């Protein structure tokens, strides 16, 4: 009986503490604050590989993402963070025209890559996707051997050279070679989750891209496999530009050089860039209150 009293009191206290806060949070999210301040968007003081200009995405009549202006630097890791439905994956998919594959998706604005708009009529989306590779949330190796998983894309894309060397080099760069070199004929599906994800990274590397897009690449992995992928990301960034979407704020803090924070008016509607800058600044001293609230866990 006494224990129950204590529990009731704690619950009541919690309710009283939480109620005004959640009301305030709701008000915060609904309050429309469309344009980020200039101070909150700090373009990197180094060469940009991508320049996004007034980028917007429509799914049918729904404006999923709007007015994104962002410079993504060369050979750096840029993290996209924000609550579910803020449009970060949508924005990521714009960078290699993956949204083209979604019926009813329409992209407006420009995505300049090496100075050219990848949405120009003259641009071949297949070539875009070869140079800008992608790794997804769930490891998705083909039901083929480890060797064939890596060689597949290279063969399809007509990459010339000794295929054994191409496979070994890609597996080495994906930090998987030492673990699989004796069993390249084994099915890719027989590997552990973390190994499968590195296999997918090797597969992406084999077609010689210069950018790797990662859409929550560790969310299906255990902590050890996650740390291995994170180490790999830091290794790869010496030669590749990496853009990663992650829900794990600590991961964004650990792996990225720059962080972009996005927020939507409501789930899936009008996602916008709120703040962008060096990762250390975003995580220690953000300029925008909405960024502060999100990364300190005051809402999300």
């Amino acid at each position, binding site marked *: 009986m006494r224990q129950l009293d204590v529990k009731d009191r704690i619950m009541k206290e919690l309710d009283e503490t939480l109620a005004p806060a959640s009301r305030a949070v709701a008000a915060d999210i609904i309050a429309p604050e469309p344009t980020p301040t200039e101070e909150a968007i700090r373009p990197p003081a180094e060469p940009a590989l991508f320049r996004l200009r007034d980028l917007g995405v429509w799914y049918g009549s729904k404006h999923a993402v709007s007015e994104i202006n962002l410079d993504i630097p060369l050979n750096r890791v840029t993290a996209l963070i924000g609550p579910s439905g803020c449009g970060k994956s949508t924005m990521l998919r714009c960078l290699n025209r993956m949204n083209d594959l979604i019926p009813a998706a329409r992209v407006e604005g420009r995505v300049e890559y090496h100075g050219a708009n990848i949405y120009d009529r003259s641009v071949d989306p297949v070539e875009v996707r070869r140079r800008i590779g992608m790794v997804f949330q769930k490891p998705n190796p083909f039901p083929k051997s480890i060797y064939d998983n890596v060689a597949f894309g290279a063969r399809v894309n007509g990459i010339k050279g000794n295929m054994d060397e191409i496979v070994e080099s890609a597996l080495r760069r994906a930090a998987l070679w030492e673990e699989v070199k004796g069993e390249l004929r084994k099915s890719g599906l027989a590997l552990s989750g973390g190994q499968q994800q590195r296999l997918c990274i090797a597969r992406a590397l084999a077609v010689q891209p210069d950018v790797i897009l990662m859409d929550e690449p560790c969310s299906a992995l255990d902590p050890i496999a996650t740390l291995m992928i994170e180490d790999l990301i830091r290794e790869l960034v010496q030669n590749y530009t990496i853009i990663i979407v992650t829900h794990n*704020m600590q991961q964004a803090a650990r792996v990225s050089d720059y962080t972009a924070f996005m927020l939507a008016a409501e789930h899936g509607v009008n996602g916008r860039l709120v703040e962008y800058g060096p990762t250390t600044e975003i995580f220690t*001293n*953000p300029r925008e209150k909405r960024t502060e609230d999100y*990364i300190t866990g005051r809402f999300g």
Partner: protein
Amino acid sequence: MTRAVFERQLTEIQEDMLVMAGMVETAITQSIEALRLRDVALARRIIENDKEINRKRYECEERCIELISLQAPLASDLRTIISVLHITVDLERMADHAEGIAKIALKLSDEPPLKPYIDIPRMAEVAARMLSGALDAYKLRDAVRAREIIEMDDEVDGLYEQVYRELLTFMIDDPKTIQRATYLIWVAHNLERIADRSTNICERVVYLVEGRVYDLNVSKY
């Protein structure tokens, strides 16, 4: 998700820090009283209370480490915890200086007075005002006020210089005063250090508000 529990813990460590600060303020004021009034009992009490202040500092540090490891604080939460860690160290050292003054008060309690105390209590008064001002600036997250407090350090340094010269004159005139005068120079030095530690607290307030670490106490002395 609003993190009500974390929020409460964050408030608690800051309240604990301010309680500790109150104890340190008392120790500083009382140490000069003990010296001036030759109050041996008071001096002993200050020395005894210092143990409690030390204990509070370690307790605060442990709670900060726990919050960092379990809650992964970021942005202003992180800056708050880092500030508390720094400020509690400064407060604990200030209390040690007050304890040092109390020990000298004990040593001097049997000695004839060298001269009436004028500048040393003035130094103590300014140093105490700096500490309470620094704590107000912390509570209000007021970087402007913090910068004003830092300016006050020059006044303390000026008084220290004055006390030092005066006591040196005593020693040259009459070597029998050397021991007492040296003790008093130590008292003044302790007060000067206390004022410096208050400027450290002010620097933390600026860090808390602006997110940058600066060395703001560039003395004219």
